[in-house]
């Protein structure tokens, strides 16, 4: 294990990707993500890597498609409006079964919105990224260290299942510094993907990386096969942290930055004897249904805390299917809920004064 160093979340993303063997980065500047690109532009030339500033997010995601199709470990990073521009390319990437990593350091929306932290891209990341039936793996770290750890997991699972993976960060996690231990660097593995379009060297049939299937039966078969892989992922790769949840009457569900706020509120409420705990989704897709269902057995109420107008709350309600009431508290537009605000919600749900 290496030395503990202080790193900004955004810079840690870049260094963790390099440690995971990523040598190809295509991006475009946008606040509050730009440090990832700036860091990559400094490091990549020194390690025989590729850093390229594209003319737009539209171009950068398609460069990712090209490099991923050619079989190398590749990533891009952006912030919310940039993901909207990348939507088309992400759909093609998913439809072509090309693995890659996309980092979204979320900011407030819609439109140009703002540049302060937000979690209003939950729906976009987990269900409505772009046209067609598909999913991305979506990871939602809540500390800089966890961001570092998730980067290599995201790359590895993306490769294993041949699909795009997203790390859903936000302006707070991207801009803050925390102590991190960086993982041991891995060498890039760019030659193990047998399906890649990188020249057949007259040794095999030509590979085609493609998302077009004119015959509807063929397309349906392919999408169904993809959904069988998704089912396996749902079974094997749900991740969640449970904090003081086992005896809790009130379960807060929160991820990323808002889970940290919730944790502060829970600590304060516990001191006053309120039985409240946290289920913190680490994967947003697959959604950690098992952890939520487990606590739906004993909780009297669940509360989704988000930096949005309420998006993940829909998934919680689907999972618990009426077993317990699911309430929502959130701030949006770049506003960060305070521990006091969440604490007040806990007190209210506990039957006390707000």
């Amino acid at each position, binding site marked *: 294990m290496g030395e503990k160093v202080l790193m900004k979340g955004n810079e840690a993303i870049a260094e963790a990707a390099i440690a995971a063997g990523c040598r*190809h980065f*295509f991006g475009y500047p946008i606040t509050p993500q730009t440090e990832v690109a700036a860091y990559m532009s400094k490091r990549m030339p020194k390690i025989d890597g*590729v850093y*390229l500033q*594209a*003319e*737009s997010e*539209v*171009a*950068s995601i*398609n*460069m*990712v*498609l*090209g*490099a*991923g*199709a*050619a*079989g*190398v470990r*590749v990533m891009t990073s952006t912030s919310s409006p940039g993901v909207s521009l990348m939507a*088309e*390319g992400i759909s*093609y990437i998913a439809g*072509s079964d090309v693995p890659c990593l996309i980092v979204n350091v979320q900011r407030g929306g819609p439109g140009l919105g703002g540049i302060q932290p937000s979690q209003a891209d939950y729906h976009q990341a987990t269900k409505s990224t772009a046209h067609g039936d598909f999913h991305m793996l979506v990871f939602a770290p809540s500390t800089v260290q966890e961001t570092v750890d998730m980067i290599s997991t995201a790359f590895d699972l993306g490769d294993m299942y041949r699909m795009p993976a997203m790390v859903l960060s936000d302006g707070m996690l991207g801009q803050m510094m925390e102590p991190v231990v960086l993982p041991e660097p891995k060498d890039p593995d*760019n030659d193990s993907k047998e399906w*890649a*379009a*990188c*020249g*057949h*060297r*007259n*040794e095999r049939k*030509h*590979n*085609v*990386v*493609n*998302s*077009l299937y004119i015959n509807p039966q063929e397309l349906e078969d392919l999408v169904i096969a993809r959904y069988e892989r998704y089912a396996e992922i749902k079974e094997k790769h749900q991740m969640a942290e449970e904090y003081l949840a086992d005896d809790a009457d009130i379960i807060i569900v929160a991820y990323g930055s808002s889970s940290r706020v919730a944790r502060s509120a829970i600590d304060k409420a516990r001191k006053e004897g309120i039985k409240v705990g946290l289920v913190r989704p680490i994967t947003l897709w697959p959604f950690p249904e098992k952890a939520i269902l487990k606590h739906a057995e004993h909780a009297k109420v669940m509360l989704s805390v988000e930096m949005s107008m309420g998006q993940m709350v829909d998934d919680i309600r689907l999972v618990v299917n009426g077993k317990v009431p699911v309430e929502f508290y959130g701030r949006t537009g770049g506003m960060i809920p305070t521990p006091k605000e969440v604490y007040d919600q806990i007190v209210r749900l506990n039957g006390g004064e707000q």
Partner: protein
Amino acid sequence: MTVKGERPHALTDAPFHYCPGCTHGIVHRLVAEVIDELGVEGRAVGVASVGCSVFTYNYFNCDMVQAPHGRAPAVATGVKRARPENVVFTYQGDGDLAAIGMGETVHAAARGENIVAIFINNAIYGMTGGQMAPTTLPGQVTQTSPYGRDVKTAGNPIRVCELLSSLDGVALAQRVTVDCVKNVRDAKKAIKKAFEYQMAGKGYCIVEVVSTCPTNWGMSATDALQWMRDNMLPYYPLGVYKDIGEGEQ
């Protein structure tokens, strides 16, 4: 028995889906012959675009990637940056390259991206059934310019080679056509030069092939060729718009 002509190895045996009289088939063959002659099929990667040429991935025997509409230059950039030893080409129509993908095209060219763009300009959207393209001529009737392209409202056609030739990253910009034996030979020479320039690391090369679309123009194959000579070539003169020759970018 003497074999006078064979299918180039770089073409698969899949039958083309192109309409009778369409020049895509000739251009495919020229690209494949060049790949054969340069012996690069094993390291060639083609990027198919959206439009009639979307199925090129079925026809070329080298590895292929199919790109979103207009994004072939960005996808090809990704392939080439990931695998500099590969010989990478795009095959794009006028709607793909000069309308929806003009941004990607101009920036790939400006970067001097080491790729070849084979650009089919037939002044119309073929696959969607004959709508106005960025290269549709003034006054030309299409499904979406039913009274003839009025440049006052629909804007002017874009001369792509002339436009790209002003960029420093471009090594070769040449406009050719394939309406007769001599022009077919010249077209092949241009395509071969473009591939050779890429292999020498010279930068972005574009070969624009002024082409026909008999079906959507509503003409016979021979009438379409004559219409092209009479109407398109005056607006899109054949020639070399940029060639850095022995130079380097």
